């Protein structure tokens, strides 16, 4: 009986192999730029043409990407290739055994192309789970005309005190200093993230994550809240920022109604999309500077905040899926995405194809970064990450004390340790 079953199984398997013939690769993402989507489809079609045995399905998951993914990944029909921001979410997925270690399949030159930071972002316990694709950095975008009108020199914004003084000056000139969309709480979190990164530094952040020395209740993190409150005290944000989302705030900046916005490199495009004119601030009036440095900071002024995004593979993904992604990520292909300006590739060779001067500069900055910290709502995991978002938006409207803010983050983090 047993041997009969076994024979049947073998038969079934061979039959499956014979009939299957083609390998299906199911790829899910959350990209939305129409040009990028078109290019992604073209890439999939090109690969299918040269690999007749491969079928690629490119699918967009909606806004609730992370929630949908956690369900999809645990289903029988899990997608093979998944767009990922790395961070704590990746750790959760790895710990649940949902992802595939691709270290053995990925060729060495694919590994070296993403650099040590790219490898690091997708490595857990010495195993590689993904291929890094693009990087982003959060900077202060500013409107040169409005700075000139208020008589503010951008060089004075290199220190936090200088920034506070500049904000006052801009406000006195009757201009809204900063645009913020605190309804989307993550926009406010960039302030807390950066202040914590500057004040605690890489080492301090790593210690806080383990919970040692009071974790996120350590003085550096309380101070981050205090400094944020100092900024909020100046009421630097546009009226109604508490109810404005990111799209609205990028429009306010794009329309020249605010002098600055602390936002990722993607804001270059978004401010165009969301401004009334569709043009945003003209290139020659637009500039950006790094988040200022603070007194007594333990971090480095050249530490940066941003993301390293890429693609991970579910546990049942085929070798073919990894090979396809390696091809998709080779310099020549990534260069097409860079040329379109859809993102800044982590692959330095591909980044050379960036045509936009702002993106070129940001790519250079990230290359020179002493430590590229991942957005806290990614790196700390969804729970503590969302706690950071939540307290940050409250800090922006002075609705929470710095100690309570740090406490909320620590409470959330404590539950996940």
């Amino acid at each position, binding site marked *: 009986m047993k041997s009969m079953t076994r024979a049947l199984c073998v038969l079934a398997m061979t039959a499956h192999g014979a009939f299957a013939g083609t390998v299906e690769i199911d790829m899910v993402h959350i990209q939305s730029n129409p040009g990028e989507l078109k290019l992604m489809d073209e890439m999939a079609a090109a690969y299918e043409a040269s690999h007749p045995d491969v079928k690629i399905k490119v699918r967009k998951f909606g806004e609730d990407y992370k929630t949908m993914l956690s369900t999809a990944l645990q289903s029988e029909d899990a997608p093979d290739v998944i767009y990922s921001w790395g961070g704590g979410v990746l750790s*959760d997925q790895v710990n649940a055994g949902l992802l595939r270690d691709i270290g053995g399949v990925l060729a060495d030159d694919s590994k070296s192309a993403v650099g040590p930071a790219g490898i690091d972002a997708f490595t857990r316990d010495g195993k590689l789970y993904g291929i890094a694709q693009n990087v982003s950095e959060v900077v202060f975008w500013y409107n040169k005309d409005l700075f000139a009108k208020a008589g503010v020199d951008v060089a004075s914004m290199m220190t936090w005190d200088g920034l506070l003084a500049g904000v006052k000056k801009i406000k006195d000139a009757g201009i809204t200093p900063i645009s913020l969309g605190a309804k989307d709480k993550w926009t406010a979190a960039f302030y807390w993230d950066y202040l914590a990164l500057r004040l605690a530094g890489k080492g301090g952040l790593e210690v806080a994550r383990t919970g040692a020395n009071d974790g996120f209740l350590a003085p550096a993190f309380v101070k981050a809240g205090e400094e944020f409150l100092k900024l909020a005290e100046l009421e630097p944000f546009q009226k109604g920022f508490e109810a404005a989302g990111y799209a609205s705030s990028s429009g306010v900046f794009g329309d020249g109604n605010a002098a600055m916005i602390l936002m990722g490199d993607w804001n270059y495009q978004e401010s165009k999309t969301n401004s009334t004119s569709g043009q945003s601030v003209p290139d020659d009036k637009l500039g950006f500077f790094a988040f200022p440095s603070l007194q007594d900071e333990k971090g480095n002024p050249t530490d940066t905040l941003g993301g390293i995004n890429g693609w991970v593979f579910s546990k049942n993904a085929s070798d073919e899926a990894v090979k396809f992604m390696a091809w998709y990520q080779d310099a020549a292909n990534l260069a097409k995405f860079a040329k379109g300006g859809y993102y800044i590739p982590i692959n330095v060779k591909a980044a050379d194809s960036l045509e936009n001067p702002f993106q070129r500069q940001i790519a250079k900055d990230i290359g020179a970064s002493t430590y590229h910290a991942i957005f806290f709502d990614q790196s700390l995991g969804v*729970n503590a990450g969302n706690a950071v978002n939540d307290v940050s938006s409250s800090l922006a409207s002075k609705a929470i004390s710095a100690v309570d803010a740090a406490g909320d983050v620590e409470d959330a983090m404590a539950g996940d340790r």
Partner: protein
Amino acid sequence: MTSTTIATANAEAGRVRLRINRTHLAAIVLLVPAVVLFGVFVVLPILQALRFSFYDWNGYGSPSKFVGIENYIKVVSQRHFGTALRNTTFIALVSLLVQLPLALWLALSLYRNTWFTAFLRTVFFLPYMLAEIAAGLMWNFMYDGNYGLAHSLADAIGVEPKFVLADPAWVMPAIAVVLVWKYFGFHMMIYIAALQGIPNDMVEAARLDGAKPWQIVRHIKIPLIRSALAVTAFFAITGSLQLFDLIVPLTNGGPNNASLTIVGFLYQFGVTRMRIGFGSAVSIVLFAICVVVSIIYQRAARIVEK
């Protein structure tokens, strides 16, 4: 003798059993699908949520870290939970005390069939047909002091626009306006249907007896649409307890969690943070509130019926 008795008794019992089977067979056959569906889609998830609420679980794998009632303690001690309870109560009160009287008043004025009342009825019913998300986005734009209607209005009068959705003191009243606007048409329609069912001769008779219009409303119409009133009150309460999708595009629970409802709280602090255990605990608390409310409702409805 003995064996005959037993045999008779057995036959008797068999008949009884048979009779029970026959009378209940139809009931069982008809009940099974409903019971199965109810069990699988209602009872089972509730029991699951109850189980999850005792675990610290992020949704990956199966729950393994049992924490007892810790999640419940966290829910109750979370400082925003009080806000959520308060807001939900506020919404329920507005629904009952503002929305339903408004709907009743309009229904009384519009229930007779003429082309004009039919037109107005359609207009009033339109907001109800809009998707919640669309309605929320629309009002978010109307309230926006930078680009929206609030901006144009303030501009026309020459005052500074007020950002009601950004102000913790104004955000709930502003949401209540949207809520009333969105749902009064629905309640109005139920009342109209009930009012049209009142026999005309009854109203006629009252009028001949010298009853004034208000007296007719008070003593004839309202008592006769009692059950419609009860149903709408029930809808208003359950709708308030579940309110969520209208608020997401309006404020996303902000500013600073000032407009969280119970379900909004569950979503913000449970679902988006992937704390399934905590979220389940919130849902069990909500379930308990629903049970208590429905018991009170049943009692009240029975008293009104009497």
